[in-house]
């Protein structure tokens, strides 16, 4: 597993095979080939320290975790070997060893548990659920209700809009002066008699606001046309009806509104 002859840049990675110092300790413990409950913690500490020492000689960059554990193990080892002073308030070496043994067993148990979990038949690997669930049962699963009609209609409308104009601008609710000029254009030169201006308003204006807007726009357009001499305007009294008529001579009516 550890290849001392490997190139230096690979040696740095040697410890990467272990998921931390406890994992390394566990692996070393397994090499003692005895039950984890009967493991010699002292022997294990020696193995670990030797392992780390050897890596140091190879000038490996050893992760701080591993060095901290090495120091801790060296401390535990010294306490296991030396008689305990009377006034000692440090944890007993035996407790430290027991705690370490417990940790190793715990990690070993979890590693085994993980492996046996992954060895079980798994959904989507060894057994399968309905590939096309009909989304009826789970209470939270949405059921999308789009009828074919909605789909086709949506596309029909899109196509209609596209066919008409590349630029889609929402038509304004209100008549602009330009709109009014365009509306009046066909009448130019064809109004020999006085006609009420309001007769030139669009039909089906709907609400009052739109009516007033249309009237204002049409009046403004009429004023402009009168200024240009293309129509004549008349109002008999204040707030009375406004009348519109073509002037006696008209040359260029066709150009209006182009």
């Amino acid at each position, binding site marked *: 597993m550890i290849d001392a002859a490997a190139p230096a840049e690979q040696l740095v990675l040697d410890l990467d095979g272990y998921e931390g110092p406890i994992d390394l300790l566990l692996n070393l413990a397994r090499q003692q080939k005895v039950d984890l409950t009967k493991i010699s913690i002292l022997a294990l500490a020696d193995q670990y320290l030797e392992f780390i020492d050897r890596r140091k000689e190879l000038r490996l960059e050893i992760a701080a975790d591993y060095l901290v554990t090495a120091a801790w193990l060296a401390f535990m080892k010294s306490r296991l070997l030396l008689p305990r002073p009377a006034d000692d308030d440090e944890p007993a070496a035996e407790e430290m060893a027991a705690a370490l043994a417990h940790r190793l067993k715990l990690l070993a148990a979890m590693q085994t548990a993980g492996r046996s979990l992954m060895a079980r038949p798994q959904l989507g690997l060894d057994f399968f659920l309905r590939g*096309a669930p009909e989304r*009826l049962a789970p209470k939270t699963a949405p059921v999308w209700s*789009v009828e074919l009609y909605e789909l086709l209609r949506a*596309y029909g409308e899109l196509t209609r809009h596209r066919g008409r104009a590349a630029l889609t601008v929402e038509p304004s609710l209100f008549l602009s002066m330009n709109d009014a000029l365009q509306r009046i254009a066909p009448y130019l030169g064809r109004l020999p008699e006085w006609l009420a201006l309001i007769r030139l308003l669009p039909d089906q204006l709907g609400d009052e606001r739109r009516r007033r807007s249309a009237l204002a726009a049409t009046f403004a357009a009429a004023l402009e046309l009168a200024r240009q001499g293309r129509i004549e305007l008349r109002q008999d009294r204040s707030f009375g009806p406004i009348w519109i008529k073509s002037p006696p001579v008209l040359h260029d009516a066709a150009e209006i509104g182009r």
Partner: protein
Amino acid sequence: MSGDRQRQLRLAEALLFAAAEPLSETTLAERLGGLPDITDLIAELAALYAGRGVNLVRLSGGWAFRTAPDLALELQAERRVTRKLSRAAVETLAIIAYHQPVTRAEIEEIRGVSLAKGTLDALMETGWVRPSGRRASPGRPLIWTTTAGFLAHFGFDTLADLPDLAELRAAGLLDLTPLTGDDANGGGEHRG
């Protein structure tokens, strides 16, 4: 021989159950080790499920298990969450259906507005559209297509079964007053 047949039947059953999309007879035959009489096997399986709560039905150019149609009413009562797709999502779905494979930019061009964040996500959630690779053009944009689930939902065997423009026009679907946003029946402003 009969044991073999039994195993093939069981395997076909499991394959059809596990498949996300209807399986064609060719695919099934292949998965069963080049079975020559796949039609017989399917007929046998379909007969086994006839009159049951789940039936083997022909769908989307293949075979799939579906809950029995006569139970629809009772099953429908179980639908707790019925969600409507947004107007934008329906339009986008339609564009993907008719123009696939299509990029996001192309969808936006057709709709004349940019796609809101989440519209494609919502469609993906329905399982009716999916990204199917990338276009070999600058930026390598994702291209979108509909799924077999789309066909199954709208009851088409193939995409060619989607009505074309002439058919839409004939059905009057090109000359309707547009629905406006969410309040299609709310008497809002008219767009046209």
